[in-house]
């Protein structure tokens, strides 16, 4: 009787925690969507919009993008190692992913500090991008700067959360919490981290490239 009453679950074997993370990712994606679409609306209505290439350091951020994609790879390798039963592989790849995330943040901080402190080169670039009298590029410099800082900083906070999250999981890995039969926490962490990567591709495209 009870078998006939058993509920068909459309989400198959996905654990409850994983469903929760998927839902969170959808919601977080909507927040990013709000920011990106809001930015696009402001851009569509703005009288002028600078060419990002004249102002932002595209090669540096291009490297940062490449770095973040690499950390997605190391995250997959962390899970793969655990599934093969390699605890050391899990820890190694988690640490590499975390290091990649920290380096990404470091480069972002370097980029911000360069904009905030100013330099003759920046002044020159700002003039080329249409900010004739500005000596540094601040959130108050213009609507483009506001969109730039709001979007990249919101993403940066996600990377920071991700780094802390990986740190917690790495700590638990050190205690031997996970095994080849118990990979759920790693998979959920992976979902979040891949999402942060994926959304960066959008942010990079919208803010830096077009």
């Amino acid at each position: 009787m009870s078998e006939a009453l058993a509920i068909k679950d459309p989400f198959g074997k996905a654990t409850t925690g994983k469903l929760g993370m998927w839902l969170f990712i959808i919601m977080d994606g909507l927040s990013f969507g709000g920011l990106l679409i809001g930015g696009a609306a402001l851009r569509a209505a703005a009288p002028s919009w600078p060419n990002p290439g004249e102002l932002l350091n595209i090669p540096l951020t291009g490297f940062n993008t490449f770095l973040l994609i690499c950390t997605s790879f190391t995250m997959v390798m962390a899970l793969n190692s655990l599934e093969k039963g390699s605890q050391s592989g899990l820890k190694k790849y988690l640490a590499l992913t975390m290091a990649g995330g920290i380096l990404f943040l470091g480069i972002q901080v370097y980029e911000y500090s360069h904009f905030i402190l100013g330099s003759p080169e920046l002044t020159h670039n700002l003039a080329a991008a249409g900010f004739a009298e500005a000596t540094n590029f601040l959130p108050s410099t213009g609507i483009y700067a506001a969109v730039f800082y709001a979007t990249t900083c919101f993403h940066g906070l996600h990377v920071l959360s991700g780094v802390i999250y990986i740190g917690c999981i790495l700590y638990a890995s050190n205690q031997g919490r996970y095994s080849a039969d118990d990979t759920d926490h790693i998979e959920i962490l992976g979902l979040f981290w891949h999402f942060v990567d994926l959304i960066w591709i959008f942010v990079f495209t919208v803010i830096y490239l077009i």
Partner: protein
Amino acid sequence: MSEHHEQSFWAQYIFSQDHKTIGKQFLWLGLFFLLFGGFQALLIRWQLAYPEQPVPWWLFGKLLFSETAGIIDPDKYNALFTMHGTIMIFWAITPLLIGAFGNFVIPLQIGAPDMAFPKLNMISFWTMFLASIVLLASYLLPEGTAAGGWTSYPPLSTPVGGIAGEGQTLWTLALTLAGTSTMMGAINYIITVVRMRAPGMTYFKMPLTVWGLWLTSILNAIFVPVIAAGLILLLLDRTIGTQFFVAGGLATVEGGDPLLYQHVFWIFGHPEVYILILPAWGIVSDLLSVFSRKPAFGAKVTAICMSTIVVLSSIVWGHHMYTTGMSPLLGKSFMFLTLLISIPSAIFFLNWLGTMWRGNLHFDPPMLFAMAVLWVFGLGGLTGLYNATITADIYLHDTMFVVGHFHYTMAASVLFGGLAAIYFWFPKMFGKKMNPLLGKIHFWASFIPLNYVFFNMMVLGYAGHHRRIYNPSEYEFLKPIIGLNESITLFAIILGVAQFVFLFNFIYSMVKGEKAEANPWNATTLEWTLEGPIPHGNFATTPTVYNGPHEYSNPAVKDRDWIAQSEPMPT
């Protein structure tokens, strides 16, 4: 389960992960802010009826407005209606309907041991608590709390050209925190309903209360992240000098757009009214069935109609912005979509009447409040048609008509739905009975003044009374209706006093009330099958669900007129 061991006081009552305790915490928070917001409403009414006269001692006039000898000055008045709206929507009815009953009822009604993520549930409440502290802290600022209206439109809310002081900053921060709490709750409720239903509990066997709360959570999950993004931008405008929402002569850089804020606000804000009312609709659909001793008429159709409204509600936000100069074509599209909502609403409204038709009606307090929802929601819904129609709305926009309409749907329908829920689930929450006579007195002393107040607000609006003016007696065309303003205030005070009957009943019953039996209402849903105080983990054995939630007066069941969802139907 491992949860049955002895817990410390802190783990059991303060940082509890039990959905029932968290539900009660949200209930207390909501009731506190309900009183707070209600008190502010009386101060607003005082100013509108007796402008610039000292507030009397029984409204703490001298204490609150000591610098002006008890007179509410314009800045304080702005702060009053701003915080009344903010608190009632986000700190009173949201915690009451979604926080308290979402938490308490969902796991019990679907036969689950707890929420899917108990720890997240606890964090959700404490985030809300933190948000409350931030909100209340704004009162301590030298220039006072936020005063840009509950919608906080720029430029009122932006530092450039806005209202002085940092109250608005704390308001924005508090709302972002409250939104974070709501998002955590939404994840929990959705996943709990998807994953934790007892065997046999198919979607269409779920009580409509769970349907309402679940659909609300889906709307929350989609739209709170969007307003969160908007609030973050507003916060940046206020703190680090961006100018997203500043334009024209106020702006130092080109390109900001105050209308963008309005769009973002209402993309969330219109679904928000359905977020608030869907739980009430669900609760009313179930309660009418319980107290009519009849199956809910067209329960499946009601669920489908509520789902349809969830979809429609997300594409109608523009009807709040008819007067912002939008393209007439766009306006007409929004008008058409908005009017379309009346079809599913009318269908389940008729289903409610169908449930009561020839039923064996029991007029217990929960039923009275549920029936009152029919009346006030009917009026609120019908007056919504005027606001949805561009031609009428251009005249009615920003008048007291909108205030009356909005309160009929929110303050009346949602609040009465919440009160019905409190009277109904009180025996399960606290194991005691509430006094039914006091409940009935509370009902009539609320229902009559409430209708007087909000109906006549619409009359005021029709006469051209703007919703936010400080002193109506300064306007020649409003002088003839100052008497109406006075009588509304009188009835508002009666309405306020009536709530003390409820408060007394609530606290007295909790302390000294008669012990309630397990199923005082002879209801069918799973929570009533549990005896005595429900332990952490709820059901000793996971129930199996055989019947729908509305099996009343089924002829197959002998010697009583109901059968629990977990009892096999006799053959």
